[in-house]
């Protein structure tokens, strides 16, 4: 079982920027319907990429600092971090296939 872990502003540095593997960060909120629809897709992908990519999610309503730092103005947004740097920026709901292509490219 490796589902996306909920993290907060304080944990962001440790769990994303200093992580050893690439990390997909899901910026979401309870009022955002496409975010809710994206969640099961990410649950599934977290399983598939287990051990290669770590998946976390951050509620932008409870944690305004991180979305402000990365200028998130639309949710859902997925940021993929590698070595502490955002390397991919995906806005809006996307089908699983498209996400898979994107994540595979990050793994290179």
């Amino acid at each position, binding site marked *: 079982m490796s589902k996306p872990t909920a993290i907060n502003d304080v944990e962001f540095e440790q769990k994303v920027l200093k992580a050893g593997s690439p990390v997909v960060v899901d910026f979401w909120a309870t009022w*955002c319907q496409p975010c809710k629809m994206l969640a099961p897709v990410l649950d599934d992908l977290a399983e598939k990429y287990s051990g290669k990519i770590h998946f976390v999610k951050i509620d932008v309503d409870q944690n305004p600092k991180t979305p402000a730092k990365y200028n998130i*103005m*639309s*949710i859902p947004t997925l940021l993929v971090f590698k070595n502490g740097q955002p390397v991919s920026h995906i*806005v809006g709901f996307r*089908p699983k296939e498209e996400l898979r292509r994107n994540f595979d490219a990050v793994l290179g």
Partner: protein
Amino acid sequence: MTQSPVYDVVIIGGGPAGLTAGLYASRGRFSTLLIERGLFGGQIATTEHVENYPGFPNGISGMELGQFMMEQAEKFGLKTISAEASGIELQGGLKIVKTSEGDLVARTVIVAGGSQRQKMAVPGEEEFTGKGVSYCATCDAAFFQDQAVAVVGGGDSAISEALHLAKFASKVTLIHRRDELRATGILQERAFAEPRIQLLWDTTVESVEGKKFVEKLRVNNVKTGTKSAIEVSGVFVSIGFRPDTDYLRGILPLDSAGHIITNERMETDIPGIMAAGDIRHNSAKQAITAAGDGATAALSVERFLTESR
């Protein structure tokens, strides 16, 4: 993927049309598979509050309505998967639905894939998507607290978006290319009564501009030809939808805008292929009419399967 079983019905699209068709077909005890590439519930699922679907006197959230429709259909045996359709091939009496998850074999197909958001197709729109350009006010309104934003469009969804944004933004400019709104009367009343909403009539957007984020829109008055700029940090595009039928060209008869042509029983020219909902020529594009189309299409499928047995 292993060889697909032969389904009695494969439904493409999980909005009100597809889910209602799925409910009827499953209750008819036909083996039914529904594929959806994005959001189950379809467009209705992204609507904050639905108050014109009968049976809910206090309205209902679109998300909940979509979920209820899905639960109800699944209760009777509807199977659903996440997949994107890319074509339909005819093979003897069977239909092969090409999808991102492999080929599906079916005796009949109901095409209920709805439509995709129409983009403005102006410079800056792609570039600033997620940087001030948005297609979902319920998702993103909170990022524009006390800022000036614009909504482009004049239909029900544009006005609903503007009303939602008015709860957050300091000012909402509604940009519409005509001199009257297409939106239903009650929504117009609410928009005119909202002091934070200002209307810009006869106006089209020519470009979205900014450095890193949206800073202004260049607009054109279509009657006078006067060009001007308005300063906003966000622009919400709500100019309608186009039918999602690119992959059906040459397979099914389409009208000039790409909608599927059917008769009143939702049958296309190809025996055993039906269409339902917004994807259909002359659809009223309402959740309730889409649901009605879905029921009709499923009944036509039932008739087709019974007669061809």
